[in-house]
């Protein structure tokens, strides 16, 4: 589809860019100079020592050589500097900021400030007082603040859809016509929020300069190379503080790049070259284990892959067909238990050893059967009722496998002890349990499993995109949109919902067969509704919603974040579910369509202006 004719684009161009008066009144040149100086100073400050002792991880004591969290500040400061320069129309930098938005600079300055101040506050708290900061630290704090103040003096554009114009004046004190102080503070806060909030840049960037196809593909490859680098850095962060700093910088920085229109251009490129994009993504992902020399982080990576693959499978059910399934992890469990039972482990009650391909087929088939058996009675329900019943079936699975121990039920699963000692896979003489050497590169066991799992992820991605973009996929979306109208169009609602449910179950079963071998053990407690360790049903659903329903990259990103954050932030352990809940509430308030919105969904959640007769959803049947 031509992106320039989409209604979203038309709508955005119709809305004029609202450049507001800057929050801080300064001449434009001064503001720019202030920002650039601040960014330069911030970058320079990372070469000073921030603290006196190496007790704070990452060694921030060395003069002339930035380390640990200082590197993040340096990156942020340099990016801010680059973006300040783009608004000066310096040739060669224009591509960085196609929308010419100052908000990008402001967001990057905020990212730098957040990372730096987070570091400094953590130093002060951990080491017991501000006295532990060296002059370099204070310089960094002031320089980043200066940068942010500089960007706030630049004209920023902001969201206009939630300004109705009258709102700012109607609270004025009667008689004086001057706004009350509280009102002004509220207005200021609103303006700040609008400025920071990522979304459509209202200034539509000019259409990109036409490039030869090979150059575009090269850009895609480079982008995935950079993405691999960023993800590898994030997974490889050695301590929680560094990871938090990384998240702050990466999160706000990405919002900045989105505001600049750079990500939009990249998305347009990837939409144009689908096959090269998928290939580049696959290659970048396959390169990950080669960047690792220990298996510490490859284990995390393979678990992320399993989690995200299952989340993508759930996305068929939730995102495409609109069925809220709260017991999805049971299908992963069925696949894992099946693979464990036929894996030839001594702990298995079945004395059989299937080759891996047969185990995969058996696991997927078992999940399929389980999906149909659960789906056939439950899918006659709609909405909340379906959610509750699937939640129940998920728990029934866990409790049942906990009881099939020969005492309270037939002997099959060893009850709560589960099935341990699942042997490593051997495919075509290639043992997954050994470290293999490719020249100088060592592939450790988890790297082997990572590559195998990646293959499964690719299969699931292909299944998702192909099924979604077909007669069946359209029927699923139609059911999600309006089931009554869909049946009136000749769609057998129950049958198609069952198909979505069964397909989702099969995909989870596939992932489960690999998971059994990666974890070496399957126990019932891995498959709970909600628990601290993903994947569980609640986290799977959260990954889909956080990432973006109905998209491919959304659940992959959501799952990666939801796995990494608990794994990296050990101090959160006790408060993890609390933080998780708070984060979900904030997300639903400010970005209900998820981090990577589906084009359709975004309109669904934010386009309230066109609510006309066409959006009435009263059940027709109720009017005689």
């Amino acid at each position: 589809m031509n992106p320039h004719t989409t209604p979203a684009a038309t709508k955005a161009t119709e809305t004029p860019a609202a450049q507001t008066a800057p929050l801080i009144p300064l001449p434009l040149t001064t503001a720019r100079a202030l920002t650039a100086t601040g960014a330069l100073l911030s970058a320079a400050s990372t070469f000073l020592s921030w603290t006196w002792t190496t007790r704070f991880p990452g060694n921030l004591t060395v003069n002339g050589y930035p380390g640990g969290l200082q590197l993040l500040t340096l990156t942020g400061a340099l990016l801010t500097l680059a973006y300040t320069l783009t608004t000066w129309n310096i040739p060669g930098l224009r591509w960085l900021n196609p929308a010419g938005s100052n908000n990008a600079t402001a967001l990057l300055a905020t990212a730098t400030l957040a990372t730096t101040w987070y570091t400094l506050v953590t130093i002060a708290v951990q080491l017991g007082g501000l006295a532990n900061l060296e002059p370099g630290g204070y310089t960094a704090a002031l320089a980043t603040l200066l940068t942010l103040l500089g960007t706030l003096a630049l004209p920023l554009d902001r969201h206009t859809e939630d300004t109705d114009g009258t709102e700012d004046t109607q609270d004025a004190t009667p008689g004086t016509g001057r706004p009350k102080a509280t009102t002004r503070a509220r207005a200021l806060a609103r303006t700040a929020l609008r400025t920071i909030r990522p979304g459509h840049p209202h200034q539509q960037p000019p259409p990109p300069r036409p490039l030869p196809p090979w150059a575009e593909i090269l850009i895609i490859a480079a982008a995935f190379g950079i993405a691999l680098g960023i993800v590898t850095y994030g997974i490889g962060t050695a301590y929680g503080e560094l990871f938090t700093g990384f998240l702050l910088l990466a999160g706000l920085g990405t919002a900045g790049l989105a505001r600049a229109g750079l990500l939009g251009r990249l998305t347009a490129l990837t939409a144009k070259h689908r096959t090269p994009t998928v290939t580049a993504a696959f290659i970048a992902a396959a390169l990950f284990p080669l960047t690792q020399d220990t298996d510490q982080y490859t284990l995390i990576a393979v678990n992320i892959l399993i989690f995200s693959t299952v989340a993508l499978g759930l996305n068929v059910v939730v995102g495409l067909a609109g069925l809220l399934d709260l017991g999805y992890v049971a299908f992963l469990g069925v696949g894992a238990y099946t693979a464990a039972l036929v894996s030839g482990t001594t702990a298995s009650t079945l004395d059989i050893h299937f080759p891996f391909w047969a185990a995969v087929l058996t696991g997927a088939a078992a999940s399929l059967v389980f999906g149909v058996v659960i789906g056939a009675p439950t899918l006659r329900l709609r909405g909340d009722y379906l959610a509750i019943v699937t939640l129940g079936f998920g728990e029934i699975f866990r409790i049942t496998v906990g009881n099939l121990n020969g005492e309270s039920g037939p002997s099959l699963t060893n009850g709560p002890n589960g099935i341990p000692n699942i042997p490593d896979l051997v495919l075509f003489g290639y043992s997954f349990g050994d470290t293999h050497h490719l020249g100088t590169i060592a592939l450790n066991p988890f790297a082997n499993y990572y590559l195998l799992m990646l293959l499964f992820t690719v299969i699931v991605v292909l299944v998702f995109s192909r099924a979604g973009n077909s007669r069946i996929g359209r029927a699923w979306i139609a059911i999600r949109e309006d089931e009554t109208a869909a049946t009136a169009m000749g769609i057998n609602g129950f049958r198609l919902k069952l198909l979505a449910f069964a397909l989702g179950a099969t995909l989870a079963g596939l992932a489960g067969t690999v998971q059994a071998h990666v974890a070496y053990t399957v126990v019932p407690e891995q498959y709970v509704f909600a628990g601290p360790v993903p994947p569980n049903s609640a986290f799977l659903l959260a990954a889909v919603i956080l990432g973006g329903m109905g998209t491919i990259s959304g659940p992959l990103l959501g799952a990666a974040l939801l796995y990494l954050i608990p794994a990296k932030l050990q101090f959160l352990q006790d408060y993890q579910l609390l933080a998780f809940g708070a984060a979900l509430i904030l997300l639903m308030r400010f970005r209900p369509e998820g981090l990577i919105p589906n084009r359709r969904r975004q309109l669904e959640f934010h386009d309230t202006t066109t609510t006309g007769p066409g959006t009435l959803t009263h059940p027709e049947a109720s009017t005689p």
Partner: protein
Amino acid sequence: MTATDAPAPVLTATGVTMRFGGLTAVHDVDLTVHHNEIVGLIGPNGAGKTTFFNCLTGLYTPTEGTVTYKSSALPPKPHLVTKAGIARTFQNIRLFANMTVLENVQVGRHTRTKEGLFSALLRGPAFRRAEKASEERAMELLAFTGLAPKRDHLARNLPYGEQRKLEIARALASDPGLLLLDEPTAGMNPQETRATEALVHAIRAQGTAVLVIEHDMRFIFTLCDRVAVLVQGEKLTEGTADTVQADERVIAAYLGTPFEGAPGEEEAAEVAAAEARTEETQEGDQR
């Protein structure tokens, strides 16, 4: 070109009764739609028109009575009814709001295409051919309804009149032998109503019979070969536009009957005069 003598009627409803608990919404209604015929169904609000429609399309299973389509009994499931050849639109527009215009029509093609999940996953040549054919047929229908330039717009972003048109295009996508339109001109301005009239005539010219519910009397009387009047769940009368307009019971159903004597002779006379005037205006509209 009324085809009252055609061999098999497209739709025959015999003694259709629909009860919700103690309430009888539709009582013993007979209706026949012949080949190439446009039949109107009118009646005051709450007369049971939409309920009767829902009985025809399988959304409700009638408590009593039978519905046959081209002399075979209709299955009681909406998707099977559509498959058999009856398509419908809704009183409140029910498009798939977040799908594009083209996708909406392609969903309408669902019963006339076969490609299953495996074919979609394997993407063989047969699948590509079928997708292409489905898109081509959908584009034909969009061109027919004049929506072709808007193929990639989201349905929700269309103006009201075009949403109505899209609903008709989507219903036509299942190649129906009978099209049921539930208040197709509700909320339209006179121009749009005229355009809809032309569209319905064009649909009939393609060999599809049409059964239409409408409150716009002018629309009904210019368009329909035959009009059936439903009042309080029962069919009051049926016939050509002129017969129905002349029927006193129909006028009474719409305007009410004067009490004998009770409100006073003068009022009764006034009401009668008003009725006469209405009749005149309606006839005037006719000409």
